[in-house]
Structures are given as C-alpha cells and as structure tokens.
C-alpha cells in the first residue's frame, strides 16, 4: 500500500516518525512498541466496523501484518496514524464483505427531512436540552453503539473516523480515498440516521 498521491509533499512532524524510522532502518524488535501503541485504538475501530469480536480480532491481526508488510512504503508525507487507519479501513472493508450485519444501502437526505406538517417539530426535545452529563448513562452509550452498528458500512466508516476517532474531513478523505465533498455528504447522512435512532429511543423511553 502506498501513500496517497494527494498527501502533502512537505515532511510533517509526527510523534510516530521516530519509531517508524527505527523499524524501517532494521529495528524490527521495535515493532511490538507500535502494536502496543495502537492495539486498543485499532481493536475498537475494527469492533465498530465488524461488530463481531472474533472478526475484529482477525482484522486487527491482519492490519498489523499488512503494516509490517508495507511500512517500508511509508513516505512520511502524512501522519503515520492516518496511513495506519488507511490500512485498517481497507482490511476492515475486505473482512466486512463476508459479514452478515447491516446490509448495504444508500441513505437519502429525503428520508430524514419531515415529509408532512405533523412531523415538523415545534420545540427542542428534552434530550437535546439537558446537560450532557445528566443525560449520559450506560444504557444510552449502548444505544449509541447499537445505532452505529446499524449504519450501512460506507456511512459508518465516515462517522467513526470523523466523530469518534476525531480525524478531520481532509484526513478522512485521505484515509478512505474519497473527496472531501463525499466525506461531508456521508457524514451528514450518518448523523441524521443516528439522530433519528436517538429520537426514537428517547420518544419511546
């Protein structure tokens, strides 16, 4: 796997570069340090993408093996973490094609826009007004995770990278090899989908 063509050619500062340079200069004994550094992040990313714990474990293992195989191609033109997630996302997509969850479908903007006057809200619901810490509990966190799992993959990838992993629009576009505009469209639809799920949860509480 090569570094994306759109990456900035200017070398950037990154906390992982020292470790990656060491590995690429033959210090393979330092590869476990890289695993330790990203094991938990990649496990949770894979779990959100695969849902199934055994599939997530396989994906993390395959991701690290792919990193080992291709890290010599890393050009230090992007943060290493972005490159790593590019490998991880590609590994997840291959794995997910064999999975049975969340059938692929397009989300259209129309399905989230109130179609008749009775659906048009006239006041902000309590769940959007009360302080976040008063609202949060384990059941709600489970509901959020559950709702993320039901998103079709291409939308889930974007919302997980943007809103959970905290990558920027440009970084997400680079990781998934999409345009910035495409990332924005998918992110908005994914958020609207989750909003409807949360609305349903709070209304039926």
């Amino acid at each position, binding site marked *: 796997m090569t570094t994306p063509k759109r990456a900035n050619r200017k070398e950037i500062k990154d906390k992982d570069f020292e470790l990656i340079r060491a590995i690429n200069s033959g210090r393979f004994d330092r590869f476990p340090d890289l695993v330790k550094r990203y094991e938990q992040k990649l496990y949770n990313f894979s779990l959100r993408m695969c849902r199934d714990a055994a599939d997530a474990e396989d994906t993390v293992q395959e991701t690290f093996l792919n990193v080992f195989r291709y890290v010599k191609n890393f050009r230090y033109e992007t943060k290493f973490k972005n490159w790593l997630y590019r490998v991880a996302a590609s590994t997840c997509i291959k794995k997910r094609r064999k999975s049975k969850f969340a059938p692929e479908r397009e989300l259209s903007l129309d399905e989230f826009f109130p179609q008749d006057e009775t659906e048009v809200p006239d*006041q902000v619901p309590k769940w959007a007004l009360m302080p*976040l810490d008063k609202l949060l509990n384990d059941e709600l*966190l489970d509901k*959020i995770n559950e709702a993320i799992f039901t998103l079709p993959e291409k939308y889930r990838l974007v919302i997980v990278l943007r809103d959970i992993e905290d990558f920027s629009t440009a970084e997400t576009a680079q990781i998934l090899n999409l345009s910035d505009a495409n990332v924005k469209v998918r992110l908005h639809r994914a958020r609207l989908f989750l909003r409807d799920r949360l609305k349903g949860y709070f209304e039926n509480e």
Partner: protein
Amino acid sequence: MNKDEHDHKHCLELFEKLSEYLDNELDEVSGKDIEKHIKECVPCFVCLQTLKRTVDLCKQAEDRPVPKDFSKKLKEVIQNMPKTPPAG
C-alpha cells in the same frame, strides 16, 4: 415562522448544510444564512439542536479494553513474524 408557514424549499437547502455548519466548514455567507434562518424557523432550529446533540453523544462512545487473550495472541504472532518484512 411558525409550523404552518414552514418553507420546505429553503429549509431543505439549509438542511443539507447543517453538519458543515456544526463543523465550521461553511463559508461565511452560508454560515450567516443558517444563523439568520434558525432565528426565524423553529423546525430548523430544533433540527440543528438535535443534530448537534447527536454529534456530542457520538463523541462520547467509549472504547472497550482489548481482551487479554487476544493481546497475548497478537504478541505471539508478532514475535513469530520473520525478522525482515517480505519483499514486494
């Protein structure tokens, strides 16, 4: 603007841009347009607030710890890898 005067066309145009607005990714003119509109349109204001809350909640999603058995297995796989990466 009340519920009965809800202008779907203009609302729909802005509805498309609400995430970009929340992420500060809109140009100044579009951003100001949304700010002006949500002051006058209750449904769009509600939509923005619920969307914002959704994003805030999503950011709270917690990471699970890596299962110890898997961590151990991963360590073994890495240790058993060849000392040089494969060519190609």
